[in-house]
């Protein structure tokens, strides 16, 4: 009897699994149910550090991600921007990712700027993308103008009031990296190590395990890992967004996957016993 059940379970069509996973995502998306948010120490530290930046200071926020990972990374950028602009911080953005990065920054910032009454060139600047990230990161430590003579819209930096006295990393109180790739290694290894700039990062879940070591060694102040990290940050900022809305689906899908892992193991071991 047991082995027959195992046989049936072992032969479940993969499309049934896809269907169940889809249902597990769709239902919580349509019927949002609130789940308690446990803030991790890494997220809390990052939030506290940004909160401690004196009002009207300057922060460098990077949009180092592709459109394919928007679900995880954009909520981080949005939450950080809301926190920054609530404190009247001046925000400079750049991207080491050409495909998407600068245009995502443009869309996110212009949308939120209207809401917070922020003016381009006075409260925020989008530097855009330059190729060869290693040269860019090293060059910015010597002279921002040598790498970015103009901003994303081809406006000379000197004609932007906010950028008049900004020419190296020293102008920034903090660097907040939002990334979906290994560029965090370069920010830490080149910019933190060689220029002593303080920084924190929000990364996709796939990248997160690697970067916790940087938090432990204080090379990163804190770390947001994937959609959960973004939801935690939204909770701290006090603005529920896309990440918080996605956590219900995230939990239900994880539960479904755990059940399928148990079923798979049961089918495997019961099947082996039969042989």
């Amino acid at each position: 009897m047991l082995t027959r059940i195992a046989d049936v379970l072992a032969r479940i069509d993969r499309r049934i699994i896809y269907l169940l996973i889809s249902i597990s995502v769709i239902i919580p998306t349509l019927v949002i149910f609130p789940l308690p948010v446990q803030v991790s120490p890494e997220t809390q530290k990052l939030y506290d550090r940004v909160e401690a930046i004196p009002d009207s200071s300057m922060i460098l926020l990077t949009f180092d991600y592709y459109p394919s990972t928007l679900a995880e990374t954009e909520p981080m950028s949005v939450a950080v921007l809301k926190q920054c602009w609530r404190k009247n911080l001046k925000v400079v953005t750049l991207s080491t990712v050409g495909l998407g990065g600068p245009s995502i920054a443009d869309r996110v910032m212009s949308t939120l700027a209207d809401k917070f009454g922020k003016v381009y060139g006075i409260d925020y600047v989008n530097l855009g993308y330059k190729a060869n990230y290693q040269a860019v990161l090293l060059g910015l430590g010597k002279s921002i103008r040598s790498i970015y003579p103009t901003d994303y819209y081809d406006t000379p930096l000197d004609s932007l009031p906010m950028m008049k006295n900004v020419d190296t990393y020293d102008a920034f109180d903090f660097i907040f990296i939002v990334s979906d790739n290994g560029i965090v290694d370069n920010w830490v290894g080149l910019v933190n190590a060689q220029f002593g700039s303080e920084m924190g990062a929000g990364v996709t879940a796939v990248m997160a395990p690697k970067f916790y070591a940087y938090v432990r060694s204080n090379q990163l102040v804190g770390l947001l890992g994937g959609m959960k990290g973004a939801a935690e940050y939204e909770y701290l900022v006090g603005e529920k967004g896309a990440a918080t809305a996605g956590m219900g689906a995230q939990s239900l899908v994880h539960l479904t996957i755990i059940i399928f892992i148990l079923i798979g193991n049961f089918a495997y071991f019961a099947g082996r016993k039969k042989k």
Partner: protein
Amino acid sequence: MNHDIVLFLEMTLAGFLTLCIFSFLYKDNPFYRLAEHIFAGLSAGYYVGLIWHSVIMQQLWVPITQNGQYSLILPGLLGVLMFTRLVDRLSFLSRVSIAFVVGNTAGISIIQQLHGFVLPQLGDTMSRFGQEFWGPLIILIGVVSTLIYFYFSKEHKGALGITAKVGTVFIMVSFGAHFGYTVMGRVSLLIGRVQFLFVDWVHSFNKIIN
């Protein structure tokens, strides 16, 4: 045309292409192939335009022709030499450019790895021995045993074999953590698409009918 209608048409196109990609979960089909080819072509075309504008024009042509930065002719020539790979008789010339790129990258990476990763991580772990015992000890055992697992100059027998086995445990724990996070990441991407289809797309439709 009304902004809302344009937005809805954009969303509908994106929604259609998303569904085309998802259709592969059932089986391979022409709609999936169409979306796949559009994605590949669009990405390639966008990159060509991006590199042309942000590298060739902004960092080479304009500085040389308008700012008189003639020293940039040299890296420009190195770039041109890369294309000699397309001609068999001249392909050896591309090695000059490749050598420059390899040397440059190695120089930056060695400093980056040593100064930004190895030394700070070593320093942090060692300095913690004064404050705690088990944490840094586990890290030390993990690093040494994992390195020994990848030491292939001697057969893994005796003490070396036992240490390599301990290394395997640490590698498995690391793989497990990465796998768990990867599942979470991939599920997040699916959630993002579903939110787009069921929230953003529907919202854009509601906007034009209201």
